[in-house]
């Protein structure tokens, strides 16, 4: 009896959480004038017109925006996973001059509001002639600039027993070998977390993509989605919701695939 009650409560909670998402899907299937008319979930005159409209209405196929976003996301994921783990390894395991100061400096960059560095960054990228290219989004991730991930991995590596390093050293591993053969495999849960968050955050990152990209065929999904809304004119809500649904698909897919990996990763970390 208690289980039934618990399940009923949980189901109700889940439905409440899901309602906005379901509403969006339902709205994407309605003609424009019906969207704000009724609060219910079942469209009266369901149509796929919004999908066709949204896909092509900007004059550039929405597929191009998705492709651009995927390219940037893939590069950022690779960059963050490779370089943040390497940096974290150095901070956690190697001794070098100024380690503590540098670590503190790195943490300080987390606390710096993005707006403070925005214009300086923009100037640098302009001097490099990288405005209106993907480089301003991609290159920083290959320089381990995302201090949050570095910090996450430093903490994780600190929890790995140093004895494993010592054992590897006796077997003839250098610093690089220890990173490659010991740390990286044990780090996989943190790597997966980094990959997922890098992907989702980059996929949804509107501001820098707005600032740095201009040419229509180079725009990304969040920037293109905003194009359906404009305070000074009529907004294409139907097309917006339809393309939002489309946009969700890659995120959900990535999450579902990687979630299994997280669990697998968890299982591997246990010391035997």
């Amino acid at each position, binding site marked *: 009896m208690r289980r039934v009650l618990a399940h009923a409560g949980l189901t109700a909670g889940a439905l409440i959480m899901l309602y906005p998402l379901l509403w969006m899907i339902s709205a994407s299937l309605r003609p*424009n*004038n019906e*969207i*704000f*008319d009724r609060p219910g979930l079942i469209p009266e005159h369901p149509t796929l017109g919004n999908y066709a409209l949204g896909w092509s*209405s*900007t*004059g550039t196929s929405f597929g191009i925006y998705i492709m651009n976003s995927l390219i940037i996301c893939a590069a950022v994921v690779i960059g963050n996973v490779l370089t943040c783990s390497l940096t974290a390894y150095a901070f956690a395991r190697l001794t070098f001059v100024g380690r503590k100061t540098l670590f503190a400096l790195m943490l300080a960059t987390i606390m710096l509001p993005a707006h403070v560095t*925005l*214009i300086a960054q*923009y*100037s640098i990228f*302009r*001097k*490099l*002639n990288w*405005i209106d290219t993907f480089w301003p989004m991609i290159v920083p991730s290959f320089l381990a600039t995302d201090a949050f991930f570095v910090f996450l991995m430093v903490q994780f590596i600190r929890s790995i027993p140093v004895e494993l390093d010592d054992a590897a050293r006796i077997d003839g591993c250098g610093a690089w070998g220890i990173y490659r053969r010991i740390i990286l495999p044990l780090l996989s849960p943190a790597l997966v977390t980094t990959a997922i968050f890098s992907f989702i955050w980059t996929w949804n990152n509107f*501001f820098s993509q*707005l*600032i740095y990209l*201009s*040419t*229509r065929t180079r725009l990304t999904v969040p*920037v293109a989605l*905003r*194009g*359906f*809304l*404009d*305070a*000074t*004119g*009529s*907004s*294409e*809500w139907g097309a917006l919701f339809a393309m939002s649904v489309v946009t969700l698909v890659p995120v959900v897919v990535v999450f579902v695939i990687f979630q299994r990996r997280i669990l697998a990763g968890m299982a591997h970390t246990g010391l035997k």
Partner: protein
Amino acid sequence: MNTFSRRTLLGLGAATAAAITVPGCSGKSGPMRVSWYGPDPVTKALNKALDAWKSSGGAEYSAESAPFDDYWDKLATQTSGNNAPDVLRMSMSYFSDYAGRSALKDLGSLGIDTSGLDKDVAASGVADGKNYGVGQSSISYSMYVDEGAIKNAGGTVPAQGWTWDKFAEFARDYSGSVQGAFGSSDQAGNFQLFEVYARQHGTEMFSDDGGKLLTTKETVQEWFQYWADLRNAKAAPPQNVSGETTGIEKSLIATGKAPLQFGWVQQVTFYQPLVKSPLTVLPVPQGKAGDLTGQFVKGLDLWCISAASKHPEDAAKLIGFLLNDEKAIKAIGILLGVPPSKKARDLVSADAGSAGARAIKYVEDLAGKVGPSPKPWPKGYGELLTGFDRIAENIGFGKSTPAAGAQEFVDLAGKTLGQ
């Protein structure tokens, strides 16, 4: 290996960085960039006009666009990063900020042909004696009225619009005779409509140098009181309803709950598709019947050239083309507002029954009857715009009174203006 010390390495690194940076510094200038804000139809229309520019032998260009709110984030970053587009669309709300920070070029010597433009529009971008922008459109404030709905409710619509007193009377009658509807949406927070009301009280809203609010506290209070009375009489909706009916699709007129809406004249084309019967464009209410001197005709969106532009001549030619070329005019239609020249209006208003043609006719009828057009909105205008709305909302929710609200606004203006 001893020679390869840490210091040499650092030096090498610095040299490499310099080597990478220097070619960037000299600046590959690239083609002229054109940038604007607006919804998708605006972008499509301008792209078509730019195609016409290219096929008539115009210089290379690249186009950028963004929705209104995002555009300003991007333009501010580009401007401070010394990378502003050459030709840019500027709104009067931000014009003084950019012109005052010398981000815009003086167009005086660039020879843009503005001879065909309405005089007030051609001069819309003049600040401190220099011309920083050319108006894209001739627009004025207006109300769009669903005459069919009003006739069904037994009301009549005066040809020149209402006086404020008659308007209140009408709104009360309408709300009384149509179940669940309001005579008007609540406009208490509409700063731009208030500017017309303030001018009907004898003064411009701002002093010529933009440093002071000329409108008195009494006028502000009277305005807030006017709408509070309409809300109390149920002639205008309560604040919680107004809060949920922002945006064109959700507006009371689109959902049939009010017979009229206020806005800049060209926006009637956004409301018309959502209302079944044709919308009539009327002047906003007046103090004295038929006296329209509170209103003005002005270009509120401008074409500007950034001060740092490397292609000022081409940019000037392009602006001239967009204003005067027949193909460009036809491509743009009334998407940027009612066209600013007689020639363009005649070219565009061919489709006589459309909302666009009614908007054009409204502006032409108004010319000669309106008052002198005010100076460009001062620095800090954006802050007053949002502040006014916030104060009106507090009054609407009963957290403040018209008197206290008026004082709050006057204080805000004192702090914001003349900085």
